[in-house]
C-alpha cells in the first residue's frame, strides 16, 4: 500500500484517470448490449501484442517470406499458436466491430451530439478492413498474390489515373518485392498508427459526450434539450463507469479472448497456402471471409455495370455512412420506432451473408478438374447405343463437365444436364453446341461433325423415363400438310 502511495505521489495517476474511470454513465447503458465496442478494443490490443511477436520472426522479403511463415508454423516454439491467435483475432475483430456498428446504429447512438463519434467510427471500420486486407497480403501465398491481382485489376479500371494508382499501390509496374514491403509498412506502421489516432478521438468523445442512454421509444432527440436531459438523467440515475458498467465489458472481453484462444488452439494457423509463385497457375484464388461477399458480387453483377459500381459503389456507400448522422441526427432513437432502419440492418446482413456463402461456394466458377476427375455416373451410360457412348466420351473429353453437372457432380456454371432432353429438342441441342449463347461458348470450331452428332445423341438420352422428350412447338412440315 505504501508503495502504491509512493508512486501515486509522483505519477498522480488517480488524479489523472480517476475521474474518467468513475465518471457516471446512465444506468441503462450498463447493459450486455454495450459490450461490443470494448470487445473490439480488447481484440485490437491482442492483435498488437501478437503482431509484434510475429514481427520478431516474420521476414517481409519475397525471397524469404514463405520460409519464415513455415518456420513460424513448424519450428519457432509456439509460433503456430501466435499465428493462429493473430488470424482468429482478425476474424473476431471484424465480427465484433460489425456487431458494435449494428448496435450503435439500432440504438440511434450516432445521433446528436455523437455524430463525429460515428464518423470517426466509419474511418475505424475502413482502417480495420484495411488491416484485414493488408494482413492477408502478408501471408504471401497464392491467395495473397492473386488477391492483390484482383485489387490491381479493380484499381486499373479507374479512368485517367488508373495506371498511376496501380503503380503507387504495388510499388512499381508489376507485383514484386516492393509490393510486399509496401504492404508490410502499411500493415505494421501506417494503418495501426491511423487506428491509434482515430481510436483516441473515438474514446475521447465517448468520455466527453457520455455513453448513449438506452433508447426509449417516444423520447426524441432535439439539439437544444438533449444534453441537458442527458446530464439530468446521469445525475439522477447514473452509475460509475468503473466498476458498474465496465464489469460487463470486462467479462465479455475475457470471454472473447478465451474464444479466440480456443479457436486458435483447435483450428490452428491459416495457411500459408502454397508459395506465391505466379507460374504455379493451377490455383483457385479466394479471399478471406471478410471479402467473400465482394468477391461474389463481382461474379453476379451484370458485366456492363461493374466498372461503374467498383469505382462509384464504395464511394457512395462510405459517403452515405458518413452522411447518416447529418441526415438523421435528431428524432427517434429506438429501433422499435425506426422500421426502415431496423429492416435495412436485416436486409444488409442477409445480403452480405448470402453473398459470402455464395462466394465460398462460387457456383459460377468452372470446376477445373471435373472433366478428368468426375466420371459420368453409371446410370447415364447404362444400355446406351455405341454412338451415344461415343457422345458421352466427347462430353467428358471436351470439358463440358467443368461447367455442367451430371448426377450432382461437375461445375454449376451452366445448367445441370440431367434432364436436358426433356427441355431441349435434338435440333436445339445441335444449335446450342455449335453456336453457344446464353453465356456458353460456341463449340462449332472445336468439334468435328461426327463429334457433334455423337454428343447430341448422348444428350438426347439425358432425361428421366417419366419425362417426355422435348418437342418443338412448330410442327414438322409433313404434319402441317
Amino acid at each position, binding site marked *: 500500500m505504501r508503495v502504491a502511495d509512493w508512486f501515486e505521489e509522483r505519477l498522480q495517476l488517480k488524479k489523472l484517470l480517476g475521474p474518467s474511470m468513475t465518471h457516471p454513465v446512465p444506468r441503462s447503458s450498463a447493459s450486455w448490449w454495450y459490450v461490443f465496442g470494448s470487445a473490439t478494443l480488447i481484440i485490437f490490443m491482442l492483435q498488437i501484442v501478437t503482431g509484434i511477436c510475429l514481427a520478431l520472426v516474420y521476414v517481409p*522479403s*519475397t*525471397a*524469404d517470406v514463405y520460409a519464415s511463415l513455415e518456420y513460424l508454423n513448424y519450428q519457432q516454439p509456439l509460433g503456430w499458436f501466435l499465428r493462429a491467435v493473430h488470424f482468429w483475432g482478425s476474424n473476431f475483430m471484424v465480427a465484433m466491430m460489425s456487431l458494435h456498428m449494428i448496435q450503435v446504429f439500432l440504438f440511434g447512438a450516432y445521433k446528436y451530439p455523437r455524430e463525429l463519434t460515428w464518423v470517426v467510427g466509419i474511418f475505424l471500420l475502413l482502417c480495420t478492413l484495411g488491416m484485414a486486407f493488408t494482413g492477408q497480403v502478408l501471408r504471401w501465398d497464392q491467395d495473397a*498474390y*492473386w488477391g492483390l*491481382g*484482383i485489387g490491381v*485489376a479493380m*484499381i*486499373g*479500371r479507374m*479512368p485517367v489515373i*488508373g*495506371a*498511376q494508382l*496501380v*503503380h*503507387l499501390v*504495388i*510499388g*512499381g*509496374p*508489376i*507485383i*514484386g*518485392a*516492393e509490393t510486399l514491403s509496401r504492404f508490410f509498412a502499411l500493415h505494421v506502421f501506417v494503418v495501426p498508427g491511423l487506428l491509434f489516432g482515430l481510436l483516441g478521438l473515438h474514446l475521447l468523445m465517448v468520455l466527453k459526450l457520455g455513453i448513449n442512454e438506452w433508447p426509449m421509444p417516444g423520447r426524441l432527440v432535439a439539439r437544444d434539450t438533449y444534453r441537458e436531459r442527458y446530464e439530468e438523467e446521469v445525475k439522477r440515475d447514473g452509475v460509475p463507469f468503473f466498476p458498474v458498467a465496465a464489469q460487463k465489458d470486462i467479462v465479455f472481453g475475457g470471454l472473447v479472448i478465451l474464444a479466440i484462444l480456443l479457436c486458435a488452439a483447435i483450428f490452428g494457423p491459416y495457411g500459408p497456402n502454397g*508459395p*506465391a*509463385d*505466379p*507460374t504455379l*497457375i493451377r*490455383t*483457385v*484464388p479466394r479471399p478471406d471471409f471478410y471479402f467473400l461477399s465482394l*468477391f461474389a458480387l*463481382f*461474379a453476379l*453483377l451484370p*458485366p456492363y455495370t*461493374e*466498372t461503374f459500381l467498383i469505382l462509384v459503389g464504395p464511394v457512395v456507400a462510405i459517403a452515405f455512412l458518413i452522411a447518416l448522422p447529418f441526415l438523421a441526427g435528431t428524432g427517434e432513437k429506438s429501433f422499435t420506432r425506426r422500421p426502415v432502419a431496423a429492416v435495412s440492418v436485416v436486409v444488409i446482413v442477409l445480403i452480405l451473408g448470402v453473398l459470402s456463402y455464395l462466394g465460398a461456394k462460387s457456383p*459460377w*466458377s*468452372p470446376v*477445373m478438374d471435373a*472433366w478428368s476427375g468426375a466420371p459420368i455416373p453409371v446410370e447415364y451410360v447404362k444400355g446406351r447405343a455405341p454412338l451415344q457412348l461415343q457422345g458421352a466420351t466427347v462430353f467428358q*473429353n*471436351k*470439358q463440358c463437365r*467443368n461447367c455442367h453437372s451430371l448426377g450432382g457432380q461437375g461445375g454449376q*456454371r451452366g445448367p445441370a444436364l440431367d434432364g436436358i432432353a426433356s427441355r431441349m429438342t435434338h435440333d436445339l441441342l445441335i444449335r446450342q453446341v455449335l453456336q*453457344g449463347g446464353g*453465356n*456458353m*461458348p460456341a463449340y462449332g*470450331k*472445336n468439334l468435328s461433325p461426327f463429334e457433334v452428332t455423337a454428343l447430341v445423341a448422348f444428350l438426347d438420352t439425358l432425361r428421366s423415363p417419366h419425362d417426355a422428350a422435348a418437342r418443338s412447338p412448330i410442327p414438322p412440315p409433313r404434319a402441317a400438310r
Partner: protein
Amino acid sequence: MCDQGVGGLVPPPAPVSRRSVLFKLGLGLNALAAILLGVPLVGYVASAIRRRGQQAWVSLGLVSSFPERQTRLASYTNPFTVPWDAKVADIPCWVRRLQGERFQVFAINCTHLGCPIRWFQESGLFMCPCHGGVFYEDGRHASGPPPRPLYQYEHRIRDGRLEVRGGQIPTLSEPV
C-alpha cells in the same frame, strides 16, 4: 483546471516587435524545412508512379520449343527485378503458335479481375477460376464477365528466340 497554477509562470509580455519577428522567423524556417523534407518524401514514395511504361524485350525461349497450332505455358523473368524478388519475378504467359512465325502471346491475367487463366487444349478454351470468364483460343471473349479479349503482349523473333515486351501487370487502363 490547472490553468491558474501555470498562469503564474507565464513570462510578462516581451516587446511586441522582437517576439513577432522571432515567431515569423520560426514559421519561415519550419516551412522551409517542411518543403525540403516533403519534396523528397513524396518523390521517394511516388517514384513508383514514374516508373511507368518501363518495358523491355525479354525472351520466352526458342521458337522451336513451341509446336505449331498449339498453346503452351511459358514464362519470362521480370526485367525490372530486385535481388530479393525470388519467385515472383517469374511471370507466366500463354504462347499460341499458329503457323511458322505467327504467334499470339497472351498475358496470364484474366481481363475481368486479373486471376490466372488456364488453357484447355481439348475444348480450345481459356477458363478463369475466379468468376468464370471464358476465352476462345485466339483470345476472344467467349462467356462470363470479362469486359474485353485477353491481353496480348507485343512480340518479335530474334536469333530464333521468341521475345515479348514484358515487365508490367496488364490492367484495363494499361493493357500490355
